Every structure is written in structure tokens, then in C-alpha cells.
């Protein structure tokens, strides 16, 4: 009995030796890869992990002279300051409303554009629309601001020209709290719909053509084809896109809002990210701004994990 055991142990030691031997050989074979990838690794440690370490100032009363580690510890004070402040609900409301509002407009618009492009038989029209629709994705929000001025400006914008032509008073859309949220949502839809349509278009290209042939044989009209074949075929992609957007609901588009907003519309324009910028960088309230950033980071992580779970359950494939 004991002999048997020693034998088995001996065997496993030999096996282990062999395993570590081949592991070592595998490592050595890839040593040049480790060498070049180590630079990227160091980059990640410095530019992605040091900030995570720095985030501890959310729990400190940060003083520039004392630095990250030596500033006095204040526990959850910064967090409770934020949660109990009057702007807390306003920021959360604006952030969620902009994210969800953009999604409600851009997802149906992108699905519609993708289906229309897929069904269109005029090659030149399809190509021209595709080229023009993808382009705005590559324009920065600084450029978008100039384009919006050309349309909305009270003195030289075309929209106000039309209003004036009908005898109305020009409206200062960009500084009006009623119109500002619509500008944010519609300008984002204008800029990103084409780009978001790509993923739906890719899904449409994957539809089995024999389905359409069968439908034609059965005498289905084009409307029925869209209703019963095309839309059901991209339904899973729509669900995944919506879940993905829900996972990043706290990112309402800093660059856009920051470029478009101004003091008169802060109450309806301010989102978590713009507030963090003003408090942290302009007012030097580093501890408070970091706490809010960390609050957003942790909730963002939770939302991503949940949406990934749902995507995994729905499609069998997660994102990571």
C-alpha cells in the first residue's frame, strides 16, 4: 500500500518536472515576445494602474504639497458631501437622460438607415449616402460646434432665417434651457447614426438569401419581407447594442456637452463628467472630484458587468 503511494507520488513528481520543464521551454521560446511586449506592459502599469492607485485621494483631503499618500485621510466624507449636495440628483438625471435620450433616437435611426441602405437598389444613392453618413463620425465636436452655429446662431444661422422669414423672433437655441437638450440629442444622432448603422448593415449582409427566395416564391411583398425576415434577423444585434449602451449609461458624452454648453444652460446641461472637470481642474477640489469620478467608475463597472452577463445569457457570447 505504502509502496504504491510512493510510486504514485514519484510518478507525479516526474510529471511535474516534465511540465515545468516544457513550461520553461515555452517561456524561453517566446522570450523575444516578452521583451517587446514588456514595454507595452510598463506603459499599462504607468498610465493605467498608477491612476487607479491615485484614486485613493477620493478618501483623503488632498493637498498638493503632501501628495497622494501623505494627505490626511477623511474616509467617506467626499462621497457623502457629493451624495447630500443639491446638484447630486440633477447631475445623475442629466447624465442618464442624455444617454438614454441619445439611445432612443440613434438606435432606431441606425436600424432604419441600415435597412434602407440594404433594400436600396440604386448603387450611386447607396454609396453616396454611406459616404456622407459615416463622415461626421470623424469630425470633432469643435467642428460640430461651428456647424451648429451656422444653423442655429440667432444672427447668421439658417434656422433663425426661416423663423424670421415667417415673421417670428430669432431664438438663441444654444443658450435656451428648453432647446439645449434637443440640440445635444439631435446633433449626436446626426453625427453618429451612420457609424452605428455599420454593425446592423453587417448583420443584414449575413442573412441567408434563400430566405428571400422562399418568400418571393410564396408571394410575400417587400413590406412583408422587411417585417418578417429582415427585422427579426437583426433583432439579436439590436438587443446587444442596446445592452452595450446601457452598460455605458454614465458616459453621456463629455466632449460634446463641454463644447456646446454655457452658463445659462448649466442646470439642464451639466453631466457628471463636466462637473468633475469644473470642480477638479478649475476649482482644485481634487478630493471631491476624484470621489465623484470613483463613484462613476464603480457604477460603470457594475453596469458593464451586468450588461455583459445579459448579453452572454442572450447570445451565448460575452464581450470579454
Amino acid at each position, binding site marked *: 500500500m505504502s509502496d504504491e503511494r510512493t510510486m504514485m507520488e514519484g510518478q507525479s513528481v516526474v510529471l511535474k518536472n516534465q511540465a515545468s520543464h516544457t513550461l520553461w521551454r515555452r517561456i524561453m521560446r517566446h522570450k523575444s515576445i516578452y*521583451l517587446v511586449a514588456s514595454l507595452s506592459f510598463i506603459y499599462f502599469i504607468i498610465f*493605467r494602474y498608477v491612476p487607479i492607485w491615485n484614486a485613493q485621494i477620493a478618501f483623503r483631503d488632498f493637498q498638493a504639497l503632501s501628495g497622494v499618500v501623505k494627505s490626511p485621510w477623511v474616509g467617506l466624507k467626499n462621497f457623502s458631501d457629493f451624495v447630500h449636495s443639491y446638484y447630486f440628483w440633477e447631475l445623475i438625471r442629466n447624465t442618464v437622460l442624455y444617454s438614454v435620450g441619445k439611445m432612443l433616437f440613434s438606435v432606431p435611426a441606425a436600424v432604419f438607415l441600415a435597412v434602407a441602405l440594404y433594400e436600396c437598389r440604386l448603387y450611386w444613392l447607396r454609396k453616396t449616402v454611406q459616404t456622407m453618413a459615416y463622415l461626421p463620425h470623424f469630425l470633432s465636436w*469643435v467642428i460640430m460646434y461651428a456647424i451648429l452655429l451656422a444653423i442655429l446662431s440667432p444672427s447668421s444661422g439658417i434656422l433663425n432665417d426661416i423663423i424670421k422669414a415667417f415673421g417670428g423672433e430669432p431664438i438663441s437655441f444654444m443658450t435656451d434651457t428648453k432647446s439645449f437638450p434637443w440640440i445635444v440629442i439631435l446633433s449626436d444622432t446626426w453625427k453618429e447614426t451612420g457609424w452605428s448603422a455599420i454593425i446592423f448593415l453587417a448583420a443584414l449582409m449575413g442573412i441567408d438569401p434563400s430566405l428571400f427566395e422562399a418568400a418571393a416564391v410564396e408571394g410575400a411583398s417587400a413590406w412583408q419581407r422587411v417585417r418578417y425576415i429582415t427585422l427579426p434577423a437583426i433583432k439579436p444585434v439590436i438587443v446587444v447594442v442596446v445592452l452595450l449602451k446601457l452598460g455605458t449609461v454614465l458616459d453621456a458624452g463629455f466632449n460634446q456637452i463641454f463644447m456646446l454648453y454655457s452658463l445659462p444652460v448649466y442646470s439642464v446641461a451639466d453631466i457628471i463628467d463636466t462637473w468633475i472637470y469644473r470642480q477638479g481642474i478649475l476649482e482644485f477640489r481634487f478630493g471631491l472630484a476624484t470621489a465623484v469620478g470613483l463613484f462613476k467608475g464603480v457604477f460603470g463597472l457594475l453596469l458593464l458587468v451586468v450588461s455583459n452577463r445579459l448579453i452572454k445569457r442572450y447570445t451565448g457570447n460575452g464581450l470579454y
Partner: protein
Amino acid sequence: MTSTIRLTRSDRLFHFCIDGALVLILALLIIPIWSTLTLSFRPNDFIGSALDGMFLAPWKWSTAAYRALLGHRSFLSAAGNSFRIFFEGVITALFFTVPLAYALSIKTLPGRKLLYGIVLVPYLFNPGLVPNYLLVTKLGLSNTLAAVFLPGAVSVYNTLIMKSFFEELPEELKESARIDGASELTVLLRIILPLSKPILLTIGLYYGVHFWNDFFNAMLYINDAKLQPLPILLRNILLSSGMNEYVEANAFGEAPIYAIKAASVFLAAIPMLVAYPFIQKYFVKGTMLGSIKG
């Protein structure tokens, strides 16, 4: 796809609606850009509404706004800075992204899972603006062009797109080189990279567009007026009511302020518009790759 079958009336209506909708969408996409473009060419003595301006005959256009901007030092220096950020940024980004993507694509690499985890954690959890700001200023990058591109030099998303491209290259190619005694680095440099020109170009341009457009990092870290890139200058031009700081005083009388604002935007967008056809060729493929999980 069903063109051999005679169209019924309802099908013809269907195609009429689809084509009509696309023409409408095209108009919605073109009108804002056209109105900005005609605004930039509007002469100083123009009388009439903005709508009239959109239909002004091209031979009555004035290039005064463009000449005023191109003749000014601050615009040229900002453009120079932006080009440097573009090229230095793309090279730096690819230098860090390619080896990482390649390492992640080798299924037999010991420690691959760990490396994957290290790359993924910051993707899922972002500690926010201030901790990053403290790092960049602590590294002494304030008032350097590197502050614009270095914090964003490795995008996890781009890395994963590149990784799936590497994974789809035929395994036999790498295997045969290994049998011939090539090291992994040689395989990467001699076999993988020459085959990867489309993805290098696509990802490089993704990074480039991002760096070219960035105004936030420049605003955070660059105070020195000589180092300002175009987006910062544009933003200042767009938000200011007077133009004295940006164009020579004598140019002021020749072009209206709003024309100068619109012209500055088109000048800044030119490199993007030149690069766009090249990007368009590849980005659809790239985006589809990105939708495949890593």
C-alpha cells in the same frame, strides 16, 4: 436580389419610399455642411439672409477668410503642432499596441491570460479624470506635445481589433517559419507585419484621427501658446467675439467674423477629409472584426 420577378405595385411603392427616405437623409446630412462651407466663402459686402448665402453663385465667393487665417502665425504654428501630434502619436501608439496585440494573439504564450486580465481591468474600470491628471502632471508632461497623445496611446479596443486580425492569419505561415528556426520576434517582423498593412493603416488612422481631434488633453496640459494644437485655437476662435488675436488687423476688414470662424473649421478638417477615403476602405472591415469577441 429578386429583380427577375416582376415588381408588384406595392413593391414599387416600397422602393419609392426607401429611395425617397435615403434622398431625404442625404439632404439632412449635406445641408448643415453646405451652409457652413458657404458661410466661410461669404464676402464682406454680402447683403441678404443666411439662406440667400447658401445659394450664392461660386464666382461671387470670397477667399478672404482663408487668406486671413493662412497668413497668420498662430494658425500656422497650431497646424504644425497638430501635424507633429498626429505623426508622433500614431508612431507611439502603434509601437505600444502592435507587440501587445501580437502577444495576446499567441494562444501558446505562457501568461497570456494574465496579460489579458491586465489589459482588460482598466477598460472596465476607469478611475476618472483627476487621478490621470495628477499622473500626467507628476510625470512632467505639462506643456509637451506628448501630453496630448501619451495618455491615450494604447486603446484596449484597438488592441483587441488588431489581436483578432493577427489570430485570423493562417497558422501554417507562422508554424513553417518557426520550424525553420525563426524566433517569435522574427515571425512578427518578417511574416506578420508585412501581411498586416491594412490593419496597421486602419488602426493607425483611428489613433491619428483621435489625436488630431483631441482638444481635452491639450486644454488640460498645454498652457504655452506656442504649443497649442489646432482644436484649441479653433475653440478660442469660435468662442471669442473679436478676432484681433488670431488674424492680422488689416485682414479684419476684408472678411466677416463668422466667415473666419467657418473657414478655420474647414482648414482644420482638410487632412481628415483627405484621409477619409482611405479609412473608409478599411473601417467597415475593422468594425466587423471588433464586433467579434476577443
